[in-house]
C-alpha cells in the first residue's frame, strides 16, 4: 500500500491533475489555481498517510517529497492569476509529477523521469524564449547535453556512467560550469515556475547524489570539492553584480548550495545537517522568488541599481521580506543557521584555506542579501508607486507559511538530529538497489 501510493499514485496524481486542468479549466485561471492546490494537497495526503499508518522510518526522499509538495502548494497559493497562469500552473503540476517520479523511481526510472523533466524544460524555454534573452538558448543547449548524458548513462558502465550521471545532477543542483539550466529556470520562466524550481531542481540533484555516493571514486570527490569551492566563489561574485532580483537569487542559490556540494565531497556522506540545510536554502530562495513575483506583478522589473522605498507603502510585504532576508543571511532562528552550524561543527577537520572560502561565501551572503533588501524596501518612494497596494491575503498566507516551515525545520529538537545520525549509516547502500536513505528524524 505504502509503496504503491508513494511510487505510483503520488507521481501520477499531479500528471493527471495537469491533464484535467488543461481539458476543463484552461480558460479559468482562478479555478485552475484552486484545482492545482487541491491536487497538491491530495498528493501530500497520498504521500503522508500510508507511511504514517505503516509507521515506516522517515527517509530523505520522504522529506524531499514533502518539501517539493509544500513548495508547490505554497507557491501556487501565493500566485496572483495573470495571462500566464494556466500554462505555469499546468507546467508546475507536470514538473511536480515528474519530480516525484524521480524521487520514487529506481535507477533507470529516475533517469527516465529526469529526462522527462529536461525535455519539458526545453519545451518551456522554447515557449518563453525572448529575442533579448540569450539565457534560454544556452539553457536549451545545456539541457540537450544533459539529456544526452542521461541517455548515455543508461547504456554504459562505471566509471563513465557516474560522470554521465553527475553532469545532469550538477545542472539541477547548480555547479560550475553547467549552472545555466538552473539559472535560466529560476529567472526566465513565468508564474509559479521559478519559485517551485528553486526547491524542485536542487532536491532532485541532492537525491541523485545520495544514490551515487557509495560508488563515486575518490578522484571524482576531489574534483567535486574543487568545483564546489569555485562555484561558491563564482556564485557569490555574480550575485553581487546583478541588478535583477531573480538572477541575484539564482546565483545566491548556487553559491550557498555549493556549500553542500563541498560538504558532501569532504565527508563522502549525507549528514542530517546537509539535508536540513538543503531544505532551508531551497525554501528561503523559494520565498524570495515568490516575493519577487509579487513585485513583478505590481511594478514590472525592478532595477536594483536604485532604491525603491517600498516599505513606505507595503508594510506587510516589507515585514515578510525582511524575515526572509534574515533567514537568507543565515541568522537564527531560521533553518539555514542551525543547519550550517551543524554541518560545520560536525566536520572533524578541514583545511584552513577551504574554511576561509566557505566562511567568505557565508559572509558575502550578508552583503548581497541586505543590499537587495535595502534597494527594494528602503530609500525614497518613487512617485509612480504610490497607488500600489500591499499583499493580498493569499499572498501573505503563503509567505507566512513558508517562514513557519523555515523555522520548524531549523528548530527541530536535537534528539531528532541524533536519531538522524544513527540512520545515516544506511545511506551506504549499494548503488544497484538505489534504496532510500533512512532518515529517522
Amino acid at each position, binding site marked *: 500500500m505504502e509503496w504503491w501510493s508513494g511510487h505510483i499514485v503520488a507521481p501520477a496524481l499531479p500528471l493527471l491533475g495537469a491533464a484535467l486542468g488543461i481539458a476543463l479549466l484552461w480558460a479559468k485561471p482562478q479555478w485552475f489555481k484552486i484545482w492545482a492546490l487541491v491536487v497538491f494537497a491530495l498528493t501530500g495526503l497520498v504521500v503522508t498517510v500510508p507511511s504514517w499508518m505503516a509507521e515506516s522510518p522517515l527517509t530523505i526522499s520522504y522529506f524531499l517529497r514533502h518539501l517539493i509538495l509544500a513548495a508547490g502548494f505554497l507557491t501556487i497559493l501565493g500566485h496572483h492569476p495573470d495571462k500566464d497562469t494556466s500554462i505555469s500552473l499546468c507546467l508546475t503540476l507536470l514538473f511536480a509529477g515528474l519530480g516525484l517520479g524521480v524521487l520514487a523511481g529506481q535507477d533507470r526510472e529516475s533517469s527516465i523521469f529526469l529526462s522527462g523533466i529536461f525535455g519539458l524544460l526545453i519545451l518551456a524555454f522554447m515557449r518563453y524564449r525572448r529575442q533579448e534573452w*540569450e*539565457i534560454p538558448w*544556452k*539553457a536549451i543547449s*545545456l539541457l540537450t547535453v544533459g539529456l544526452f548524458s542521461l541517455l548515455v548513462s543508461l547504456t554504459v558502465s562505471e566509471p563513465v556512467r557516474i560522470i554521465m550521471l553527475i553532469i545532469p545532477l550538477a545542472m539541477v543542483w547548480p555547479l560550475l560550469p553547467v*549552472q*545555466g539550466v538552473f*539559472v*535560466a529556470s529560476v529567472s526566465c520562466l513565468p508564474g509559479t515556475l521559478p519559485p517551485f524550481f528553486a526547491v524542485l531542481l536542487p532536491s532532485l540533484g541532492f537525491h541523485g547524489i545520495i544514490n551515487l555516493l557509495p560508488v563515486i571514486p575518490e578522484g571524482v570527490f576531489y574534483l567535486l570539492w574543487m568545483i564546489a569551492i569555485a562555484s561558491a566563489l*563564482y556564485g557569490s*561574485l*555574480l550575485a*553581487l*553584480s*546583478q541588478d535583477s532580483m531573480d538572477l541575484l537569487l539564482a546565483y545566491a542559490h548556487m553559491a550557498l548550495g555549493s556549500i553542500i556540494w563541498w560538504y558532501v565531497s569532504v565527508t563522502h556522506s549525507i549528514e542530517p545537517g546537509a539535508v536540513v540545510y538543503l531544505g532551508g536554502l531551497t525554501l528561503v530562495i523559494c520565498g524570495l522568488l515568490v516575493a519577487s513575483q509579487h513585485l513583478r506583478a505590481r511594478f514590472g522589473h525592478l532595477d536594483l541599481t536604485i*532604491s525603491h*522605498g517600498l*516599505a*513606505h507603502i507595503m508594510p506587510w510585504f516589507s515585514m515578510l521580506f*525582511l524575515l526572509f532576508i*534574515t533567514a537568507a*543571511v543565515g*541568522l*537564527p532562528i531560521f533553518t539555514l*543557521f*542551525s543547519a550550517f*552550524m*551543524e554541518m*560545520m*561543527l*560536525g*566536520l*572533524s*577537520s578541514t583545511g584552513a584555506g577551504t*574554511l576561509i572560502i566557505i*566562511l*567568505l561565501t*557565508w*559572509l558575502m551572503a*550578508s*552583503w548581497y542579501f*541586505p*543590499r537587495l533588501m*535595502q534597494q527594494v*524596501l*528602503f*530609500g*525614497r*518612494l518613487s512617485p509612480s508607486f504610490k497607488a500600489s497596494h500591499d499583499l493580498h491575503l493569499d499572498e501573505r498566507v503563503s509567505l507566512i507559511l513558508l517562514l513557519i516551515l523555515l523555522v520548524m525545520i531549523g528548530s527541530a*529538537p*536535537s*534528539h531528532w*538530529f*541524533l536519531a538522524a*545520525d544513527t540512520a545515516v549509516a544506511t545511506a551506504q547502500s549499494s548503488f544497484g538497489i538505489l534504496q532510500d536513505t533512512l532518515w529517522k528524524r
Partner: protein
Amino acid sequence: MMIFLAVLVPLLPLASGLIIGLFGNYLGNRSHQVGVPALVTACLSSLWLLYAVSTAGPIHIVLQPSSGGPHNWLAFSLYIDRLSAVMMVLITGVSTIIHLYSINYLQGERGYARFYALLGLMTFVILSLVSSANLFMLFVFWQLLSWMLYLLLAYNFGHPPAVRFAFKTLIVHRVGDVAFLAGILLSYSLFGTLEFSQLFARAAEAEILLPLWPGGRPMISAVTVITLCIFVGAMAKSAQFPLHVWLPDTMDTPTPVSALMHAGIVNAGGFLLNRLAPLYGLSPTTLHVVFAIGALTVVLGAGMMLIQNDIKKTLGFSTMAQMGYMVMECGLGAFALAIFHLIAHGVFKATLFLNAGHVIQASRHEPKRPVADHIEEAVSFSRTTWITGVSVTLLLPLIILLLAHGMLAIPLQDAQAAVIFLFFAWVTASQAMFSLYRLNAASWKVSGLMLLALLLVIFIYLWVAETFTYFLYPEPGVAHEYFQVAALPGQLFDGLVLVIAGMIVLGWGYLYTNIRGQRSLFPEWVASLRPQFYVLFMNRLYADQFYSWAGKGIIRFAQRLDHSLGGWRL
C-alpha cells in the same frame, strides 16, 4: 525565586517587543505604556538578581539540555554570575532610561511603535547574550545583535544616509561575526565542547599547537588562534581600529538609539573578553595583541574626536577612544577594570547623548546656538595653574615606576593590579588636567580642582575599582593570575610609561609655548605636524575611503567577470 528572576529579566523586554510589534498599529503612540513598565520591572528584577547572585552564588539554568553525542553543542542555558548580573543591571538601567526619554522625544513619529518594539527586542537580545552559558548561545545572540542594530540604525529608512550607514555597520559586524564563528569552529573541533566551564578546563589541561603554515613550522598555540579569531568579533562590536568605521557614521539615527548604542551595544566586546577571560588568560600573545589594538584605538579615536565639529560625532569618536581604553585594560589583564570602565562610560555617555539631543533641538530654535564661547578661550596665561597641572600629572608616573620596581609599598590587595590601576588613573587624570586647563586657565580654583580631580581619580581607581575587581573575581588569585599572564616585559612597560610621560610633558610644554606665543622651544617641523595630523584625522585616517575603494573594487571585479564571460555567463 532566583531562577524565576533570571528568566523574567530577559523575558519582559521580549514580551514587550513582541506585543508592541504585533499590535503596533493598535497601540500607536501609546506603545511606551507597554514598554516602560516592562523595562522598569526588568530593571528592578535585575537589581534584585544582582543582590541574590552576590550573596548566594551563580545560577545555572538549563533551558534546552545538550543531547550529548555529536551534537552536544546544541544547548541553551543561562549562566548568571556576578559579571552577568552587573551587566544585566547596566543594560536594563540604560534601556529603561532610553524608554522613558523617548516618550516625548519621539512622540508623533511615524515609526513610534516600531521603535519601541525594536528597543524591547534589542534589550532582550543583549540580556540573553550576557547570560549565555555557552559559546553557541552567545554566538546566536551575538549575531542577532548585529542584525537588530542594523534594523535600529535603519529606523529612518526613507533617509538615504541612515540606510547607507546602517548597511556599512552591518557589513563590519558580519566580518566580526564570521571571525567569531571561525573561533567557535576551531574551539569545538579541538576541545569538543562549547560550554564555558568545560571549554576553559580542557583548554587549560594541555597546550595544543597548530602549524601556522601547511609545512608544519612555525607552530602556534591553538588557544591563541581561537582567542584572536574571537577577538576580531569583539573588535567589530566595540569599534576597535581598523573595524571602527561604523561607529562615527551612525549618527543619523534618533538620539535614543545613539545613546543605547554607545552606552550598551559597544560594550558587548568588553563583556565577551571578560566572559572568556579564563581562555584569554591562557594566551599572553593574544593579550598583548589586544593591548596593542586597544592602545592604537585610544590614540586614533581621541585624535579624531578632537577635530570634529558635530556634537554627536565628537561623542561617537569619544566612545571609540573609551572602548580602546576598555580593550587595553583587558589586554593588561585588568578584566574587571574594563567592566568598571564600561559601566562608568555607559552611564556618562548615555547622559551626554540624551543631553545632546536637547542641545540639537534647542539649536534648531535658537540661531545663536552653539554659543560662541571661543572668546573665553583666549585666556591669559597662569603660571600657577600651569605648574600645578604639570606637577600633578607627573606625580603619578613617578609613583608607578617606584611601585613597579618594588621601591614603594602601597598596602593594596595586589601590587601588580596597583600598577595597572595607577597607570590608568594617571592617563585619566592627565585628560582631566588638560580639560580643566583648557576650560579656564587663570584661576586658583582650577588649581584646586586639579588636585581634587587627581585625588578623586586615584581614590576611584585604587579603591573602588580594585574592590570591584575582587567583587567580580572573588576566587583568590584569579585576578592576580590574569595580571601576571598579561604582564608586559619589565623594560617594555617602563619604556611605555616613560614614552607616555614624555609625551604628556611635551604636551604641557607645547601648551605653555603656544599660549605665550613662543614657538622657539619646538623645531618648525613639530609645528608643521599639527596640520598634517589635522588633515589625517579629519579624513579619518582614510580608512573609510579604503574600505569604500575595496568594496567598489570587489563589485567592479564581479561586474567585469559577469561582463567578460559574456555569452558564456549563465
